[in-house]
């Protein structure tokens, strides 16, 4: 959907003439009370569920969660997936032309924040004629957007489902993002963000960024169980410093290669920056309880015990702040082994809680 009007941005300035890619699933009911907005994290899109015709491998990124008969049941709810501004899956991003200059944005694409994304999503809902969301839902950075919805548009959200998320990033977390950004920005093919004109892609940087990211999405246990010290080829050591020796190296390189093929380098910088900047308590002297006083939605929060990138302690901070404000909430801490990745995986306890919440609360 195209938006001609300028969207004011938190960092100053605005963006106009932009497009948002979105998909919907299920039917909006007569009183428009069954809409569920899904917010994506770093590496995902508006394609949250189902497969495209004739493309059996095009499964949506949250197909375990969303679809007919799934925990978020599209037979019952009208689900909206939207690709955020600055991303690289169809919405306007740094690879597109700035309508003011006619030139590719590249490095000049404005820095967008979680709050900006939420404002853009709200405009999309306006255009779809949806005033109130039955629920807004997301994991990780998507959970930050869901939380932000309850603060920016409290009257438009009945329920917020916040999975494996945090009220802001810790220093360690920003540090990981910075390593990834430096890997990209120091790739000679990056050209200060204007690599499109040079007909190259900073793939080396993207690969390293993805490798670092992947390490942080898994738990030590799962990595040991999946790869351990297994060698990639046979049982003899190669005594080489540059060849792939261990299975884990092979896995990370493969993930990096795959990622560098489709992901945009500027998008990576933009989205990790949005993660870094998100901090609703900042305007309240760091007091999250004060910051969440505006939220009136009911919450379901979920975290995973082995997630060290968005640890349960961070979700508990949100729980505590909501308790201080006497908000209705439920919180499940799932003892899953898979680290941060668990929020995308099939765990019956996790999916069961979300399913029951939608059945007993959101749909009630």
């Amino acid at each position, binding site marked *: 959907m195209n938006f001609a009007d300028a969207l004011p941005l938190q960092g100053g300035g605005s963006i106009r003439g932009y497009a948002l890619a979105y998909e919907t699933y299920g039917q909006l009911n007569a009183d428009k009370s069954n809409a569920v907005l899904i917010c994506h994290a770093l590496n995902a899109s508006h394609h949250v569920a189902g497969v495209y015709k004739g493309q059996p491998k095009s499964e949506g990124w949250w197909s375990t969660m969303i679809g007919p008969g799934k925990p978020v049941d599209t037979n019952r709810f009208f689900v909206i997936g939207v690709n955020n501004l600055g991303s690289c899956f169809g919405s306007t991003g740094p690879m597109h032309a700035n309508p003011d200059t006619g030139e590719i944005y590249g490095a000049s694409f404005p820095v967008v924040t979680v709050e900006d994304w939420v404002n853009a999503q709200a405009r999309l809902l306006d255009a779809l004629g949806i005033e109130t969301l039955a629920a807004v839902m997301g994991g990780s950075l998507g959970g930050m957007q869901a939380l932000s919805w309850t603060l920016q548009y409290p009257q438009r959200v009945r329920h917020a489902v916040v999975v494996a998320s945090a009220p802001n990033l810790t220093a360690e977390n920003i540090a990981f993002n910075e390593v990834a950004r430096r890997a990209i920005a120091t790739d000679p093919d990056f050209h200060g963000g204007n690599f499109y004109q040079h007909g190259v892609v900073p793939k080396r940087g993207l690969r390293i960024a993805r490798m670092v990211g992947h390490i942080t999405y898994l738990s030590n246990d799962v990595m040991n169980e999946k790869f351990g010290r297994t060698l990639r080829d046979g049982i003899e050591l190669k005594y080489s410093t540059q060849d792939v020796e261990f299975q884990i190296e092979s896995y990370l390189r493969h993930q990096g290669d795959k990622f560098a093929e489709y992901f945009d380098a500027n998008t990576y910088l933009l989205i990790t920056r949005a993660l870094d900047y998100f901090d609703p308590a900042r305007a309240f002297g760091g007091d999250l309880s004060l910051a969440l006083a505006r939220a009136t939605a009911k919450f379901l929060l979920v975290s995973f015990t082995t997630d060290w990138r968005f640890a349960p302690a961070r979700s*508990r901070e949100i*729980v505590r702040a909501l*308790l*201080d404000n006497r908000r209705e909430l*439920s919180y*499940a801490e799932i003892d899953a082994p898979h680290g941060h990745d668990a929020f995308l995986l099939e765990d019956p306890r996790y999916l*069961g809680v979300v399913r029951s919440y939608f059945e*007993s609360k959101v749909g009630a």
Partner: protein
Amino acid sequence: MSDLETLQSIARLVPQGARVLDLGCGDGALLAHLQALRGCSGYGVELADANVLACVKRGVNVIQLNLDEGLSMFADQSFDVVLQIDTLQHLRNAEVMLRETARVGKLGIVAFPNFAHWPNRLAVLRGRMPVTKRLPYEWYDTPNIRVGTYRDFEALAQKNHLQVLDAFGLQDGREVRWLPNARAGTAVFKFQRRAA
């Protein structure tokens, strides 16, 4: 302990419309009852996945938390009532949690199996640990790591500067107010922090 009469006896102690925190809330039956019949609101706290799911299923707010990690998430006097129904006996930090209950709640209500109930005494006299309907476990597999009596709790309350507002035994769904330490399988205490 989950039979209806027992549940109703406990529920009667909870003021109408109270904001309640139920520690070790199980499947949320008591909270659901309090919400439906006494206009209460609040949250359950549970550790077990199956119980968390059961609470969400019945629309009871639940927070998954290990009570052995304490109640730091909850502010002082932020609830009208904090319940510990058949929870105390499972807690490693039972005394700390009792103090925490009185810190977080304006009222605390605790119920636990009374080890001094006469059939239990009889079993011990015979030289064996009791196995009863109320205490169905063998000594080697019991989750009840804190075995105490009605009278023991009175002493513990005293030690922790808690003012007991009401106390009685429960047996076969009935309140026992005469010799509860010998005549009741369950001890129930309603208390608050003694004014400093």
